[in-house]
């Protein structure tokens, strides 16, 4: 990382629309590195757009500081901030053609005509829109409009590019193609991207780091792998992919693991990341694809629970099994469809589910 591009310190925003409403952003602390692809991920209404608009300068925070390359920009109007926003609705100027849309920012900054021309053409080449210079936005497809919006922002070579669900309006196939393209463009221009999305798959595949937001707060900040493999809260575990949640009381602490239950054929332990004592209630998560299903008792040394299959769903590349454990919890397990023959395990089968000790993970806090 080449230093910090954007820093949010204790930023809060209360629109004060109605008394009693929770603030749109309660408290956000972030440090986004220069050149980083950083995602803000969270459900609708969690304050992603508000956070982005505060960085861009369209909203002023109720409290806290926003620093762009170390300079406090609170109070600086949008047109004096060296960041550009790609709007969710694109907000292309309908009365201008593609060229004029893209050249808009450079013209406002009185860049020399030749340079504008060179930069606009280079960027249109980068986003694959050569030959469309004279088209009006309404004559373009959704994906092309999206590229114009991106080009219009990137051409200014801002110190950071803010993108508010830029792919939200595209269909799945185009969205996936544009994800790769965005990533490529980001690598080529080397600009810091702050990317807002509520699509966890998108965030996982594109980002260097992700901040998962909920109710105006950052629940967890980390690399996609950290967020996925070691979710800090129940919310993060549930929001990113499917996750199994198990609640149990600590029986004893055995070195680095907390033993939650053990009997002749069952074993449930979790790596204790924080100090726990016997009697504490912990909540642990296991991803469905980490679980092995077997008809026989698995090798000792891993976590194993007995249960009965209550539901089988064929998913194409894998099959999803829902298993009701002897303790009454429902656990989802995925199994790759490696062979073409139907699985021997079906609804009503008695099975063992097992996973590596390291593959389950205790959440930071237990929520009621």
């Amino acid at each position: 990382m080449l230093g910090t591009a954007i820093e949010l310190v204790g930023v809060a925003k209360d629109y004060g629309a109605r008394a009693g409403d929770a603030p749109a952003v309660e408290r956000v602390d972030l440090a986004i590195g220069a050149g980083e692809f950083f995602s803000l991920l969270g459900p609708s209404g969690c304050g992603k757009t508000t956070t982005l608009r505060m960085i861009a300068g369209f909203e002023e925070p109720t409290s806290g500081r926003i620093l762009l390359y170390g300079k406090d920009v609170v109070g600086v109007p949008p047109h004096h901030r060296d960041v550009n926003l790609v709007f969710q609705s694109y907000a292309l100027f309908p009365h201008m053609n593609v060229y004029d849309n893209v050249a808009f920012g450079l013209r406002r900054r009185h860049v020399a005509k030749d340079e504008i021309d060179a930069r606009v053409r280079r960027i249109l080449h980068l986003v694959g829109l050569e030959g469309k210079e004279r088209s009006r936005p309404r004559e373009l497809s959704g994906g092309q409009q999206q590229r114009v919006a991106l080009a219009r922002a990137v051409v200014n070579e801002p110190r950071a590019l803010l993108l508010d669900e830029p792919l939200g309006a595209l269909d799945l196939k185009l969205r996936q193609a544009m994800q790769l393209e965005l990533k490529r463009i980001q690598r080529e221009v080397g600009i810091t991207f702050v990317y807002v999305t509520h699509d966890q798959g998108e965030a996982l595949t594109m980002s260097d780091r992700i901040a998962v937001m909920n109710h105006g707060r950052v629940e967890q900040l980390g690399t996609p792998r950290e967020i996925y493999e070691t979710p800090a809260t129940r919310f993060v575990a549930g929001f990113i992919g499917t996750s199994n949640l198990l609640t149990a009381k600590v029986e004893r602490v055995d070195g680095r693991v907390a033993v939650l239950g053990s009997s002749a054929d069952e074993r449930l332990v979790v790596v204790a990341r924080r100090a726990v004592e016997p009697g504490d209630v912990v909540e642990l998560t296991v991803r469905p694809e980490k679980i092995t299903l077997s008809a026989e008792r698995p090798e000792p040394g891993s976590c194993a629970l007995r249960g009965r299959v209550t539901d089988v769903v064929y998913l194409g590349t894998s099959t999803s099994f829902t298993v009701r454990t002897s303790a009454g919890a429902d656990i989802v397990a995925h199994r790759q469809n490696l062979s073409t023959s139907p699985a021997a395990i079906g609804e009503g089968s008695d099975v063992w589910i097992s996973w590596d000790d390291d593959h389950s993970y205790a959440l930071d806090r237990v929520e009621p």
Partner: protein
Amino acid sequence: MIRRLRSALVPYALALPAGLWLAIFFVAPMIVMLSVALETGNLISGFTLTWHFATFWQAIDLYHVQFIRSFVYGLVTTVLTIVIGYPVAYWIAFRGGRRKSTYLLLILLPFFVSFVIRTVSWQFLLADNGILLGHLKAWHLVSQNFHVLATSFAVVLGLTYNFLPFMILPIYVGLERVDESLLDAAADLYSSKREAFLRVVLPLSVPGVFAGVLLTFVPAVSDYVNAQILGGTSTTMIGNIIETVYLENNQYPTAAALSFVLLAALLIGIFAYARALGTEDVFEAAAA
């Protein structure tokens, strides 16, 4: 064969209602008016079609001052309604908030009262010794023979007042359609508020202004009520002339010729205006 004939006829069939409408309410009256203009005679002995084209030249020659005056008044009125109406429409569209419809209603409210009565009210207000001037004269703020009525100012004032909503409403509709995120986008792309207005809002509101100009200019040029009630002998408009020639002098051919010339002049003006402004070139110019 029949099918091909039928498909060839379909467009004409579809255009038929509009064509009929135009024919009955526009072309037919035009022809009637033209033929009346080419008649000669008087009320007692009757009028006969004599193809007397000279009526046109005589009419224009006699009343060209009023013709020109009408177009000047119409032009000034249109400019004034834009100057006053645009900010009002802008304010309602972008600053009106939840009260937008209330403000629009307030603008339309006076227009539930008849055109003539509203204009007569102005006559009371502006009378030589009326509410306004009477007090000003009593306080010696203006000289005793100062007057507003019977001046061009009074007529243009009345026209502007009466046609203002026809300018405000279409501009408002045009501005209302401007997506506010475009203003954010302009600000994000280094535009000050002023630049965002000039580069984005103004060009996008041109169609609304265009409609407003048509709705204001055409009826203002042919108006006769304002000149009648608020004006004097030096402010006579072509509408008043047509009325007098037709109803009082009973010179039907002359009245028809005047009406025809007025209509033709307005149509030519509208088409020239549409050509000059209606193309997308305005937008290109605004973008550069």
